[in-house]
């Protein structure tokens, strides 16, 4: 039996905009087990990204409970949340956010330099980063400026950065949203590979082709999880995608 890494119960998130209450998430509950790769899908404005940022501790919840690795993140202060994000979580964003004054490899090792989780020398960190880059096929861009590499290479560098502190789980917000199809496939290949090596992933996507690579899909509408779909990953990708699309149509996509 696999362990639950993320346990979300009755999660609510409300924004007050111009004195009007906007309930973005309404009593959302779900669990993610270790080694899973879960996609969150839903129409624009349904609360997908808010869900991702709230369960990962980047944003505060209004009500409910989120346990990450057995810790209730609502009870943690900002510093403890930051430490959790640094040591136990990895993040990949739609836009390839990087520190513009750092080279590609420096951006990758930055979380490791900041963290005291892994006791190693700077040289060892760099060596580990190079290994990760090698695995993701971007080792030749290590010393480049971030302006000097393509979007796909940059997103893979972001994946390396999210992996550098050996996190328990990676959160990805539309990781292929800003990429062309070829780059998108490359990035998803890498994420799938990471998952197959044991890393838990939760990603937000609009793209059923991306979601079809996951083990499970949560479909969210108006801040509620409307349905959940388990994907049989042993099937060919094209079949998985077709079946997922059919399910999404049933859900009203």
């Amino acid at each position, binding site marked *: 039996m696999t362990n639950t890494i993320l346990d979300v119960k009755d999660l609510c998130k409300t924004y007050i905009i111009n004195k009007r209450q906007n309930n973005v998430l309404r009593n959302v509950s779900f669990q993610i087990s270790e080694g899973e790769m879960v996609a969150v899908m839903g129409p624009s404005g349904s609360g997908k990204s808010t869900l991702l940022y709230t369960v990962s501790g980047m944003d505060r919840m209004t009500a409910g409970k989120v346990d990450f690795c057995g810790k209730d993140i609502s009870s943690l202060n900002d*510093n403890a949340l930051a430490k959790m994000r640094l040591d136990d979580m990895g993040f990949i964003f739609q836009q390839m956010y990087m520190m513009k004054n750092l080279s590609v490899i420096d951006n990758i090792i930055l979380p490791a330099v900041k963290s005291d989780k892994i006791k190693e020398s700077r040289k060892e960190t760099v060596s580990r980063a190079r290994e990760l880059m090698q695995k993701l096929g971007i080792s030749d861009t290590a010393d480049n400026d971030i302006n000097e590499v393509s979007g796909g290479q940059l997103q893979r560098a972001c994946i390396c950065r999210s992996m550098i502190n050996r996190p328990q789980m990676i959160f990805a917000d539309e990781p292929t949203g800003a990429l062309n199809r070829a780059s998108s496939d490359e990035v998803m290949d890498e994420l799938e590979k990471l998952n197959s090596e044991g890393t838990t992933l939760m990603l937000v996507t609009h793209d059923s082709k991306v979601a079809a690579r996951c083990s499970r899909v949560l479909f969210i509408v108006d801040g509620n999880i409307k349905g959940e779909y388990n994907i049989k990953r042993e099937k060919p990708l094209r079949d998985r995608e077709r079946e997922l699309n059919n399910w999404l149509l049933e859900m009203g996509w």
Partner: protein
Amino acid sequence: MYFNILKKDLRRKKTVNLIILVFVILSAMFFSSSVNNIVSVMGGVDRFLDMAGMKDYFVIMSESGDGEPLSRLLDESDEIKGYESEPFLLGDAEMLRLNGGIMENTGSMCMVMSADEMCMTYFDKNDEPITSVDEGKVMLTASLAAKADIKEGDTITIDMFGEKLDLEMAGICKDAILGNEMTDSPRFILSPADYAKLYSNETVRRTSRCVSYIIETDNADAVEKALSSSDGCILDFSRSLVKITYVIGISVAAIVMAVSLFLIAISFVVLRFTIGFTIQEEFREIGVMKAIGIKNSSIRLLYLTKYLGIALIGSVIGFFAAIPFGKMLLDSVGGNMVLGNDQPVLIGILCSAAVVAVILIFCWSCTSKVKKLSPIDAVRNGQTGERFRKHRSMSLSRSRLRASGFLALNDVLSNPKQSAILTIVFTLCALLVMVLSSTSKTLASDELLYIIGTTKSDVYLDIHSSTREIQNEIKTFSEVESEIEDTLAENGMPCKVYTEGFYSVSVESGGNTSTCRFLYCPDTDTADYVYGSGTPPQYPNEIALGYAAAKEIGADVGDTVDITVNGKKEQFIVTALMDSMSNLGKCGRFHSSYEIDESSVINTMAHQITFNDHPDDKTIHERIEKIKDIYFTNRVFDSAGYVDDSTKASGAVAGVKDLTMILSVLIIILISILLERSFISREKAEIALEKAIGFKNRSVIWTHVLRFIIIAAVSVVIAALLSSPATELIMDPLFALLGAVKGLKYDIAPVEMFVIYPLIVLSAVTAGAFFTALSTNRIKASDTSNIE
């Protein structure tokens, strides 16, 4: 649309716009008040002298001598158009008491006169001419009232040779010729009845009678010639020389003016940054405006409109703020003067308009950046697709620094232009204060002893009662000095005393004549004094000449000059030229072996006391207090105190230094706030990213603050290195006006200069950056999803 964009800008960038407004207000306020100040002081000296009735030459003659009266010589000269005279009694500090106690800061010489015998015009505190003084009352020089803390209603006792008057202080008088910082010799205006009581004393009449002459002539040489034929000239000034005595006031005004120009320069730097950032941030709006066909000039006009608005509001506020501020500055510059100019409002308006115009010109050139942005920027989030520019300059992989330290240092090095401008601004702020600190310290140190014309002693006892006795041949210098030595020995302070005497002589060379004050002391080695060029006089017929005197008569080292002294003309060889602020450089020194009639001495310096037992500084200061009690005077100094008292400038410079310090700190804080806000706004995405990957709030704040600390630390180091050459560059011309033509060695307070000021600058930068960086707490990790 323009209005909406402007409204949005003003709402979104409230703090930044407010700080720019503050800079414009400060610039306009300082510019208007300083220009008005300069005009008032520069033109004001002439205006004040005219109002006071000063003509071309001013002379004080002692009527106690046997020589021919100056009035007869002036009457006989065809070159003298006219003259007026006013009699007075010359006294000294020891004859004065305030409320029964010591009167502080009286200066060495004071004048007592009757209100009905004034030929000059003296002004009261409301700048109204003084016409009469009631019996039992006295009006006195403004600078003395300020320095000695004398208030209306206080009792002032004048005791001249036993003739004692208790008078009530009725108000201040502004004296155009002898009332400023450099020449101040307190003047006491009495009622005719009170004056008559003093005058009735035989000793007073015999020893203290003097007359000041206000002479109108186009030929100063005619006056010099008359003076050379008459004994007893105590003081003589041409009108131009009187104007130079206001150098301290003018210098203070000039320093304030320099500070205001500096402020304006800072405002421009700040504006340049802000406009640059604003345009960078608004690439999308600018791109869209260009995409829909709005011309570059129209877009630039939009920004210009905004800054025109800020500049107009700021300069109007600055104009009005300049009125009280200018008055405050003017009072500090010339509280002893009747100052003002005819067009203060017009000057204020012109200065404020100039600030607006310069800001607009500057804005127009800054907004040229708009041309570089294209519609494609709106589509590509400010990226044009060009990928040539390298941003980074350090490698985290190869660095040993921790993450925050590395990010801060890397940011500083990766933005060299921005860092350089900030470094220059912080350096200038620190440097300005350091230069003024060094100047004020030098003015109150014994570095300047030589330009007063004396040498270092343990204590300087500035009493002059014996001068009159020497002049009247009651005592000799040796006798006076022995008396002091005996008195101090009886009180356990065995010592050697010597006294420098001033002698009024007429120096002639190549047909040019100058009335100079020559220093002479038979008890010192003439070689011990400092000379600018040549070699010290070694024989009785050799002299050293002040640079100003040498220039006036066209003499140089090696020349032979004729000097009329003791009523006879003798030839002397000029062997050296010397820096001196005595008589503003119109001076000289006889060799110690030269024999002179001591009774012709017109004044003396303080008695210089050197203790036989070589005491340490602490003991010297204890003895100073003891000597004050013995002689019932507060005019006892150590060497630094004596210089400070003689130059009377350190207080004014220290005041400007404190004002500059406050302004510098204000500027540093404002700039740190403004730029940190701009950085936060520009780096919002990076801050959110740092937080998303696990940086704590305090790490982000520390990174931001550290950038400023690095720049400030570099700045204070540069400022410390440049402080010495910068002080020489800026202050040498000023000291040259005081008589130190060849420059001087500046004194510094190391702890103040290299510890306190750097710490103040660092603290101001840190405080400004820190409190602004706290706003990064509002940027959340989840903002990564909202950033464009």
